[in-house]
């Protein structure tokens, strides 16, 4: 009898396994195997073409930990992320809050604010590099920003925005935030619409003003959404590179380098595919650790 029940149990498990097998197979082929290959390649010196690869163990990882340019590029990515977390998300939050109210042209604003995220990053980079162009023709600036500054009485502010190390990365970070705030706006707006209006009415009855309601109702209720937006912002901003390529090409010395541009250079510039994979594995690992801790923080905040 026990053998029959064991067999029946195995049969049920096997049938269940067969149902998930296609998904597991796809996951294994497109996620697990490529990750294994990338990690394997990171232990080799390989130029991407030759039939043989030289096994070098963890030499690439040792080199990466001493690579000052790599860690400088991480710092640049963190700067872009910081601007996105502050400027981008505060703007998205404020605009979502405004659009959640009953205001005129609410639908129009919602549409307008979602246009930047759906534009191609290359196109956005090209347009902004034209706006920030420092060139001149006939003594007059040709970049839109410099032209406007010159025309409206601020010629002292005319600047070489993308070729000055003090401003290049900030310009890129601001454009990145301009392009990305629409996503945060949509997620925050969805979050606002899940807040029960009765909570605000109850707070009003208790004598709460705008700021009291904001800190005691809006923020606690929006906390899970805020954490999601923060995680997505960090993951997206740390991996930014398309905008950098279209705005400053191969970069302004190392001031506009980010981890992905370093990976690209390792692959296409110095043809060191193994080293590029090392960078990819390390970068991926860092992002996983960051996401894990943010998730943990989010769970603890929910419990509190």
């Amino acid at each position: 009898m026990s053998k029959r029940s064991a067999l029946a149990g195995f049969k049920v498990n096997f049938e269940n396994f067969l149902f998930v097998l296609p998904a597991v197979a796809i996951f294994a082929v497109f996620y697990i195997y490529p990750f294994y290959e990338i990690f394997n390649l990171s232990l080799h010196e390989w130029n991407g073409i030759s039939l043989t690869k030289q096994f070098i163990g963890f030499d690439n990882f040792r080199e990466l930990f001493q690579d000052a340019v790599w860690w400088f590029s991480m710092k640049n990515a963190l700067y872009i992320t910081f601007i996105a977390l502050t400027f981008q998300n505060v703007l998205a939050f404020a605009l979502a809050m405004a659009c959640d109210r009953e205001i005129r042209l609410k639908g129009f604003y919602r549409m307008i604010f979602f246009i930047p995220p759906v534009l191609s990053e290359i196109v956005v980079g090209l347009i902004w590099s034209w706006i920030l162009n420092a060139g001149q023709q006939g003594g007059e600036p040709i970049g839109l920003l410099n032209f406007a500054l010159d025309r409206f009485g601020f010629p002292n502010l005319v600047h070489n925005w993308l070729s000055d190390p003090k401003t290049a990365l900030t310009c890129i970070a601001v454009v990145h935030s301009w392009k990305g705030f629409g996503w945060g706006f949509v997620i925050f707006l969805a979050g606002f619409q899940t807040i029960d209006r009765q909570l605000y009415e109850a707070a009003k009855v208790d004598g709460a003003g705008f700021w009291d309601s904001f800190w005691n109702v809006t923020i606690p209720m929006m906390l899970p959404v805020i954490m999601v937006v923060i995680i997505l912002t960090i993951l997206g901003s740390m991996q930014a590179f398309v905008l950098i390529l279209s705005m400053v090409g191969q970069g302004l010395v190392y001031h506009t380098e980010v981890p992905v541009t370093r990976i690209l250079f390792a692959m296409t510039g110095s043809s060191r595919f193994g080293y590029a994979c090392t960078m990819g594995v390390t970068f991926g690992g860092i992002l996983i650790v960051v996401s894990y801790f943010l998730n943990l923080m989010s769970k603890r905040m929910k419990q509190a």
Partner: protein
Amino acid sequence: MKRTIALVLSICLVMVVGCAQRTGDLNKIVIWHWMTDRDTAFQELARRYEQQTGVKVVFELYAPSDVYSHKIVASAQAKILPDIFGILHKKHIVAEFIKSGVVADLTTDFNADGKAWRNSLFPRALAVNQFEADNPYGVAPGIYGVPIDVTNIQMLYNKALLAKAGVTEPPQTYEEFLDVAQALYRVGIEGFVSGWGELWMVECFASNYAFNIMGEDKVMATHRGEVPYTDPDWIAVFDLFKRLVDHHALIEGVVTKANKYAEQDFALERAAFAFNGSWCVNVYHEMNPELDYGVMLPPRVNMDRPMRIWGGAGSSFVVNDLSLRKDKAIAFLKWLTAKEQQVFLAEKTKNLPANRTALSSIPQVLADFAAAMDDTTHPSVWPLNEDPQVVEVFDKGLQSIIIGEKTPAQVAAEVQKAKAARMQKQQKRSQM
């Protein structure tokens, strides 16, 4: 029984269809290219070739060039390269393609019929596609690519803008060039533009002057590690860029300027000088047909040495050694580089033809570019190239001089430090 017959017939049908497709494919050559300005001309030539020979030629465009490069590498790894393609990498990577067995050796074809095909093309263009005996890449000596046009990179000058600054003749020396730049600056004209946001262009400019100041032998000795980058001659090369800045010679934003925007600046007369390749003739013609400009070699620092400019093959194609249509592919490339087709390409695209006999039909400004082909050199023909990681430090160092962040001496020290580190690593790897 009926099912068995049906199954056998189905299998036979599949095999017949499969074989028919294979036979049809043998009359079709597929070529992958990246040249957006030439696609229309290529399609027309493909049509003509099919009319003449019955062989269908399919040109597939994958642009821009860096996307094309990635596609070629990925396709080589997957062994799905087309019959004819281009390799837009440095020579050591071309060597790897050859050693992987995906690039055909064309030496026999070039030397056939008393070297007729070989002699029709510019030697410098062939040299870029050639590996000599005892090359450091471990490749059997031979010619592995077919140049379809030639190019070189020189300076251009806008005659009208120079005249506004009271300059009647283009400068002959670097000192004169700096004086002209100051004269232009005084009348509010920007001096010099180039696509130095693309690091290879600033490297090219520096390389020209390195050869002029110290000669090819010393440059190669530096690549071998025998001469440090802190040598006074190298510091003199770095100092040229500082002097350009000090004399207000450079257009604003030059360090992050892609070449296509630099071309726009020169074509729209925002700068009096440009540093660009012969492909710019077509570009300038499209943007501003009235532009009145001339071509000159970069003005020398050292009058005792020649100015060696980068040039040779502009674009080259290689033949897939694994292709079943290899012979047809080679025949097509021979046809493509014949005089009639080269004249057609030169007229349509305003690029310099690879065939020397096609030079008579080109515009004067292109002829001026062609006149300097004997002054050309190229990293692909050097006995040894610098390590790419050292080149990056070198190029970024030049950028930092231009933006005033570092001095020539500081950059020289950094490049030498990178060089020493790479040489140590290479020595360690070779011992593993």
